[in-house]
C-alpha cells in the first residue's frame, strides 16, 4: 500500500523533468515537501517511500529532512504558524506579534494547542522584513503586517 498518492507521484515526476536523468536526487527536497503537504509530517515510512521512488538510500533522504527547517519530523497541529522574530522584524513588532499569539493560543513556541488546531513556531528570516510583522501558515501562506486585529482575524479564519 503506497503512502504517496498518484497525484503526489505526478507532482514529483514533474519536478524530475527539471534535472538530468541521472540526477534524480535533485528532486528530493521537493518530493519531501510534496509528501509533507499530503501527510502533514514526514514519518520514516514516508521518507523510505520517497527514497525508493527516487532511487536513493533512505539515510540520504533522512539527512535532507533533518537539515532543513521547514520539514516536520513529527506531527504538528492542523495549522503550523511560524512567526519571524529576527532583528529587522523585531524592530517592527515581530516579537510582540509572537507574544500576542502565545498568549491568545495559550502555548509557547514548539507547542501545539490541546485541540490540535495550532502549532506555534519561531521562524528565522523569511526575506520579507519590510512587511513586518510576518508569519507563515503551513510553510506556504505568508501573512504580512500582522497587527493585533489581523492576528485575531487570522486565528478566527483558521479555526473554522
Amino acid at each position: 500500500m503506497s503512502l504517496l498518492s498518484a497525484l503526489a507521484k505526478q507532482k514529483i515526476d514533474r519536478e524530475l523533468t527539471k534535472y538530468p536523468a541521472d540526477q534524480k536526487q535533485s528532486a528530493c527536497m521537493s518530493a519531501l515537501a510534496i509528501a509533507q503537504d499530503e501527510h502533514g509530517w514526514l514519518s520514516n515510512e514516508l521518507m523510505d517511500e520517497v527514497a525508493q521512488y527516487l532511487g536513493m538510500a533512505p539515510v540520504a533522504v533522512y539527512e535532507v529532512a533533518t537539515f532543513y527547517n521547514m520539514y516536520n519530523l513529527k506531527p504538528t497541529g492542523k495549522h503550523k504558524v511560524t512567526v519571524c522574530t529576527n532583528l529587522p522584524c523585531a524592530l517592527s513588532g515581530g516579537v510582540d506579534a509572537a507574544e500576542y499569539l502565545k498568549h491568545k493560543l495559550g502555548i509557547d513556541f514548539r507547542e501545539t494547542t490541546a485541540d490540535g488546531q495550532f502549532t506555534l513556531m519561531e521562524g528565522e528570516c523569511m526575506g520579507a522584513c519590510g512587511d513586518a510583522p510576518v508569519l507563515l501558515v503551513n510553510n506556504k501562506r505568508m501573512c504580512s503586517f500582522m497587527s493585533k486585529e489581523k492576528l485575531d482575524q487570522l486565528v478566527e479564519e483558521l479555526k473554522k
Partner: protein
Amino acid sequence: MSALNYGPDAVILKGLTGENWRLKDYEQRDGYAALKKILKEGMKPEDVINEVKKSALRGRGGAGFPTGLKWSFMPRSFPGPKYLVCNSDEGEPGTFKDRDIIRYNPHILIEGMIIAGYAMGIGVGYNYIHGEIWADYERFEEALDEARKAGYLGKNILGTDFSFDLFAHHGYGAYICGEETALLESLEGKKGQPRFKPPFPASFGLYGKPTTINNTETFAAVPFIIREGGDAFLAQGKPNNGGTKIFSVSGHVNRPGNYEIKLGTPFAKLLELAGGMRGGKKLKGVIPGGSSMPVLTGEVMMATDMDYDSIAKAGSMLGSGAVIVMDEDTCMVRAAERLAYFYFEESCGQCTPCREGTGWLYRVIHRIEHGQGRPEDLDLLLNLADNIQGRTICALGDAAAMPVRAFVKTFRAEFEYHIEHKRCQVKTGGYSNAAEPLQMAAE
C-alpha cells in the same frame, strides 16, 4: 494600479505596479529587447562579457565581486554541460529585494539569465528560490512557462541555433544555502553544507561541472547593460561602483521597503526616501549591508554615501544592501543577542569554530542581556570572534563574528552598563517603538 514607490532613480524596479509582471507587460517596458539585439546583431559572447565588464557591475548578493570578471572565468571550450545558477535564497536578515524582482518583474531575471547563458556558452540554468516565499516561487514558474511558450527559452531561441532552458528550484529553510557551494549541494539534493574551495564552482560546480552563480539582482541588471550599454549603466553610479542598487530598508523608519538608488547616493537621502525616522526619534545605529555586516553609529552613517567603497571606508560593508535602522530606544545588547542567536541556529555544524563558537557568542551575550554578565565577558566575546573568523570553510563564521565584534566595539559603554548595573540603560529595554505596539489581552 499606481506605480510602487521604489524611488525616482529605479531601473530594475521601474514602472512596476505589483500587477504588471506578465510577459506582455515586460515587453512593453522594452523587455527582451536586449536578447533580441544580441541574437539579431549576432553579438559575440566575448563582447557581451566586455560590456558587462565596462558597466562595473558588482555582485549584488553580498560579496560585491565584479560580474564581468566572474563570467570570464568560465572555461569556453569545456566539453559537456555547464550550468548557470541564480541565488535567490534570500535569507540574510534585512534583505527582501530579490523577492520583489521575482514577484513583480520575473522576466527581467529570466532575460538576464538567458543573456548570461549566451555569454558563457551555457545551456541549462536553475533559479534557487528561498523556501519561505512559496507564492513567489509559483509566480516564477508561471513566468518561465510564458517565456517558454514565447520562444525565449528552450531549443533554438528566436529561431537561432542558441538553446537555453531554465528551471526553478525551491529551498526549504536553511540560511546556509545562500552560500554558493552549499546552494550547489542543496541543488544536488543533499544537506546544504559548504564545500572546500578551491576548486571553485567555475571549474567544479553543479554535478561537478563548470558553474557560474550570481545573485538575482545581478542578473536583473544585465538587460539594461546590453540594451543601453555598459557605459550608460556605469554612469548611473560612480567609478568602480556602477549602476543603481536596490536597498531594503527595515526597522525604525516610517516607510520600510525597497528603494533603488544610484550607487553613491548619500545615506541621508535614502533615509528620506524611506520616510525618515519613525516617530521623529533620533537615529542611533545602522547595519548598512545585512545582519552579517558591522553596525555603524547614526552619525557615521549620516556622513556616508551608499556605495561599496564609501561604506567600506566607513568601517562596514555594503553586503546585500539590507539597511537595518535602529533608533535611540533600541537596546544594542538585545539587538546583538538576537543576531547571535540567528547564527547559532543557522550554523550548519560542519566546522568546529563556527558550530561551537556561535553557541558561545549567543550564550555570553544572553547572560549580559539578562543581568548575569561578568566584567571579563566583553574581552571573551572579542576573543571568541577572533577564534571563529577566518577559521571556517565558509563565510558564515565571519558573518557571526563580525557583527558581534562591531556591536561590542561601537556600543561598548552600553554593554558595560548592562554588566555593571545588571539592567538596560534604554528605558523601553528592547526593540522600542513597534509601529503598533500590541497590547496583551486583559488578564
